[in-house]
């Protein structure tokens, strides 16, 4: 990645990224994407209204493709939202279909999202969101999958069956955010001690209650 490109992009949230998997997925050559990114970013500086970043657009397209695949398998209601998380294709799946969808994408020959990189939970005012960044080591896709649950009771089906490596991540989310993962083989607190009250990463957690 050359230096001039960096100079071209300073404000818009579209820093020169690593070879985004999304680009490859969309078939857009990396260099091509960059070449387009330059004038795009330059314009972005001139006029505040940022024209669409091609990489973001590509990611959106990928998200749409995933949605197609999932809808074909699980029905229209399974996918609640598609979009983009920064420059990563994002698909939000209905809670009930969450493990099935993840497992489906893990084995799907076109996607093979076999490597769970990061799982996180975030407490929003009205819901808790579980985010899973998955990578296909073979095909290079990098996708952000999401699901949502109510805050109370917070309950999401567990992914441990398809990704055993998420065992502790789910325990951590249970511990710190209070999301109960149904079907988890060993759902106990992991960071806090047994008998600890509350879930500290919730926004409404107060220590001295």
């Amino acid at each position, binding site marked *: *990645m050359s*230096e001039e490109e*960096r*100079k071209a*992009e*300073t*404000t*818009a*949230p*579209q*820093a*020169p*990224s*690593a*070879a985004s*998997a999304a680009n490859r997925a969309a078939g857009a050559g990396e260099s091509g994407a960059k070449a387009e990114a330059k004038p795009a*970013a330059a314009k972005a500086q001139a006029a505040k209204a940022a024209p669409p970043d091609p990489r973001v657009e590509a990611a959106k397209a990928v998200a749409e493709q995933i949605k197609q695949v999932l809808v074909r398998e699980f029905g229209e209601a399974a996918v609640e939202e598609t979009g983009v*998380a*920064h420059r*990563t294709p*994002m698909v939000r799946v209905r809670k009930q279909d969450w493990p099935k969808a993840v497992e489906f994408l893990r084995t799907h020959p076109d996607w093979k999202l*076999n*490597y*769970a*990189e*990061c799982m*996180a*939970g*975030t*407490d929003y005012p009205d819901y808790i969101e579980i*985010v899973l*960044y998955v990578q296909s*080591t073979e095909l290079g896709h*990098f996708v*952000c999958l999401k699901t949502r649950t109510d805050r109370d009771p917070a309950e999401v089906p567990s992914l441990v069956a398809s*990704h*055993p*490596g*998420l*065992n*502790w*991540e789910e325990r*951590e989310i249970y511990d*710190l955010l209070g999301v109960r993962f149904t079907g988890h083989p*060993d759902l*106990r*607190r*992991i*960071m*806090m*001690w*047994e*008998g600890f009250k509350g879930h*500290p*990463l919730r926004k409404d957690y107060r220590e001295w209650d």
Partner: protein
Amino acid sequence: MAQTEETLERLGVPADKLEHHRLRLDDDPDVRTEEMLLNVGPQHPSTHGVFRLLVKIRGETILDAEPVIGYLHRGTEKLAEDLQYTQIIPYTDRLDYLAAMLNNYALCHTVEEALGLEIPERAEYLRVIVMELQRIASHLLFIGTYLLDLGAMSPFLYVFQERERIVQMFNKICGARLTYNYMRIGGVKWDAPPGWLDEVRAFVPFMKERIKMYDDLITGNEIFLNRTRGIGQYDTETALKYGLSGINLRCTGFAWDLRRKKPYSIYDRFEFDIPVGTRGDCFDRYYLHLLEMQQSLRIVEQALDQIPDSGPVLGKVPKLIRVPKGEYYSGIEGARGELGFYIVSDGKDKPYRLKIRKPSFVNLQLLPELLRGQNIANLIAILGAVDIVLGEVDA
């Protein structure tokens, strides 16, 4: 060490709280087993920190194991929610305290990605140099402690000699020996002092010599081979399922290095190889550390040749960093695997949510699988080779 349950009983912990542990002894009164629960840790010389491993053993064979963590939990993620982005950097130093530079960078990198910042050329090179030196220092310590775990005392003291040189160089560049707080969003805090780069240049051949020495001293040792060959073996599929990263993944022969697979910073300008193992056993994991140090030296050498002589080291960064609303994740190749930061921003100067993808934490999960059916002496060999840093596991 009395049995856990007994201890808890004696301390007056009610019986229903004993649910705390998954492992329990077969308390069928008719079956007289020789099973016992052994607490390895939380204070144990080979757990590399405050880490407890509850193992169920029969004789010296491990039937099952349960890692118990959280003794070092400081709630970094929660703390970060009340800190401005620059203020978070010192906290990252304390995650994997053996590779603080890499942690610094991982956070800065994610924020820079989010902001789309321009990083000055010289800063990028300085970052790469300190990161690779840090990787060497961290790998050195792995080799030392691993050999110490296996009962060889000297390598542990040898590695500190080289590490000391690296730490001294870090001290010169940022004034700290362990928690550097060197990187800033948009560059690095200080330029290299005069003569510093020459010092690094002089270090490279010295380090190459020493790597050769370790290779001679350790790699061919019959006892060492006997204790690590074929121990703690797993295949690529298992590694991917468990989300392992770094050397724990590469030892299975799977060339997955984020510096190549998702190049960040200026790693695409350097020539280096991704050493991979062949069997996925403890020996491979040890040996990859040696090989990776060589590759890191190669990168340092190239960076020293390419680095511009002068220039700014901190880009144009607003005083108050506000990350645009959105979600950002980026991972880098840390010393122990993929070190990622996931940031949810609501457009303020503090993250709404910060999640750290901690390589040690993820890598440690495979441990019970590896330990089942092993001899208790292999426990240490396997645990040591997973290469955890408890500051990171517990965050």
